[in-house]
């Protein structure tokens, strides 16, 4: 009995040992053959006989009852384990098969779908739509009759606000002299090589005035028709300086800025700063007479030092289509960097409106009167400039 038991135990032990070897995956089939087939037992008996001969004393220690119990436990364990493993492997195998199927199916459908989605992004219609959307960036489909684009202006405004608040730290004096409604002709001194002072006056009225009115600047021809600047100026509401244009704007009760110094003002040399040049031929006075628009004198302080012109190169300017090329301590020596205006402290002072209502169309032909009025406005602006300059202690810190 004992002999037979030992044989069985040894066989079981052997097969459990084998089991461990089988425990490695991909052997589910091998395991099943061992469990189901009665054949291995015979093989093991032969093995046992060999073992018995080599190590007999090891089995003599265990009692038959103990061995039976142990054997039973091991047998149960083995059965349980093998059953579990079998089930597990079966389910795993089927899972793998399913998974494999799914993966291949998903891969095909996913990649096809992805490809479709990918291709659909590049379909002509989509591309056209996207291009059209991109093209219409910062472009309004409706502009006013002079081309002011509200969408573009809104996009450009933060840049001008930055210049206004941080770069030049503009301070406004007498903003309430600008009427909340109705027409007015703003007359200002002009300077700065690059006519940026107009943009700052526009920004100051937009930001500081309670009615936040849009002001239309009249621009000299050479700046107005400079490539790229042309498009920018039109979209931000500037208008080519001409009697017809100014009259049309004032008739529509808009605010209009003129710079009667014109080109002479922009090209003013540093040594001549804040000395007002001749005010054209009084065209703006005639304009105010015809449209009965009040004239508001404006003095801009700080701009005349922002771009200190020490010389003018006429022939270089002709090359780029400008009347001259301004030469400063930095420009054109430092290239485009030299064209950056200095961060001086700016003041914009709005004077009291000069009423023009009592002049009629017949006064437009009175050249002496026009000259006198023009000189009056010029003196007013000159005095305002002197007032602000007197109070200013530093060019850069005010």
């Amino acid at each position: 009995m004992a002999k037979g038991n030992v044989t069985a135990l040894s066989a079981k032990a052997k097969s459990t040992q084998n089991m461990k070897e089988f425990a490695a995956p991909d052997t589910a089939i091998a395991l099943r053959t061992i469990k189901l087939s009665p054949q291995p037992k015979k093989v093991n008996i032969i093995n046992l006989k060999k073992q018995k001969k080599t190590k007999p004393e090891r089995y003599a220690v265990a009692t038959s009852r103990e061995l039976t119990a142990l054997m039973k436990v091991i047998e149960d364990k083995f059965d349980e384990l093998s059953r579990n493993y079998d089930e597990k492997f079966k389910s795993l195998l089927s899972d793998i098969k399913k998974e494999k199927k799914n993966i291949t199916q998903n891969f095909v459908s996913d990649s096809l779908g992805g490809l479709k989605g990918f291709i659909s992004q590049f379909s002509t219609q989509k591309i056209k739509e996207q291009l059209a959307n991109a093209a219409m960036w910062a472009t309004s489909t409706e502009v006013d009759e002079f081309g002011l684009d509200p969408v573009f202006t809104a996009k450009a405004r933060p840049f001008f606000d930055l210049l206004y608040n941080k770069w030049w730290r503009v301070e406004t004096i007498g903003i309430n002299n600008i009427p909340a409604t109705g027409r007015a002709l703003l007359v200002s001194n002009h300077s700065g090589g690059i006519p940026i002072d107009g943009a700052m006056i526009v920004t100051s009225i937009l930001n500081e005035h309670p009615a936040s009115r849009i002001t239309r600047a009249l621009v000299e021809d050479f700046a107005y028709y400079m490539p790229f600047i042309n498009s920018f100026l039109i979209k931000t509401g500037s208008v080519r300086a001409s009697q017809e244009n100014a009259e049309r704007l004032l008739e529509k009760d808009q605010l209009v800025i003129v710079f009667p110094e014109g080109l002479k003002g922009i090209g003013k040399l540093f040594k001549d700063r804040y000395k007002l040049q001749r005010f054209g031929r009084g065209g703006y006075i005639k304009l105010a007479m015809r449209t009965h628009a009040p004239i508001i004198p404006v003095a801009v302080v700080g701009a005349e030092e922002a771009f200190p012109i020490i010389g003018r190169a006429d022939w270089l300017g002709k090359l780029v289509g400008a009347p001259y090329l301004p030469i400063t301590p930095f420009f054109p020596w430092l290239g485009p960097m030299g064209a950056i205006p200095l961060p001086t402290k700016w003041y914009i002072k709005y004077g009291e409106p000069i009423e023009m209502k009592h002049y009629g169309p017949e006064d437009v032909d009175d050249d002496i009167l026009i000259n006198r009025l023009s000189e009056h406005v010029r003196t007013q602006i000159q005095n305002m400039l002197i007032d602000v300059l007197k109070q200013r202690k530093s060019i850069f810190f005010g």
Partner: protein
Amino acid sequence: MSAKKNDKKNTNHLTKIVLTGVNSFIGSNLARRLANDPRYQLIVIDIRKPDFLEKGVKFYKVDITEPMVDSVIAGIFRKEAVDTVVHLAFLSSPIKDTSLSHELEVIGTLNMIHASSAIKLKKFIIKSTTMVYGADATNPNFLTENHPLRADPGMAYLRDKIEVEHIVKRFSEKNPNTVVTVLRACSILGPTIKNFLTSYFSSPAIIRILGFDPLFQFVHEEDIIDVFRVAVEGDYAGIFNIVGRGVLPFSTLLKLSGKLAIPVPYPLAYSIVSMMWSGNLLSVPPTFLNFLKYTWLADGAKAKKIMKFEARYTTKDTLESFMGTQRLRELRLVE
């Protein structure tokens, strides 16, 4: 038959209108509308009889560019007791043969004017274009009818149009009793019209001038036919700019059209366009590029005030109505 009977009955109330250039876009559309109107008797003078003409319309085959043809036309005017002349025999696009265009536009108009001077004509209506003002850097944003005509005399097409304007002006000064109406139309666009502007917008890629973005205005083809009817019905002496509502920057128009716009520096654009013009690939000579560089808007306030004419379509609507049809045309859904 019944139409003829009606004619005889209402001879006294009928306004007799002579129409030239009936094969043009405006001519054909105006002829269709006037032919259906019982108040008018339509007399057509042309070198080719249009197939759409109805029974009541009289047709005279006359080539207005021939020498001594003015007496023939005067004879027709007298025979038919003509009240109104609507002269539309003009080119809608520049052509290479400048001598032919000169004969048609200037000499043709001169012959019509001579014939009109010979009889006591009530009304003379003529079509012109706002392009005669010219695209110039010193233009104000809105050109009124009093503005001098400054189109580049190097452009034969516009030189002829300006000469026609001068001829008509002299005629109106000599004949104060004749109502002379000059309708200067801005760029006409619409679903059915064909001119150099429509061919420009239907090309796959469009040239624009780098760095320049003038404001543009279009007038819809229906508005232009309407205004000619208004001019026929009422008496409005003088020159009138006929424009659509609103303006748009050229760049925005190109974006709305969805066309590929290639910005080209002006000198390069000039040489490209002149090459394409000499190679018959483009319907405009290079001198027209100025119209893409400078603003040449016309002010339609006078037509609104006196003729009570205001366009129904905005510039944007006009472009969109044209582009809509153009897309269908590209898909071969309409002709």
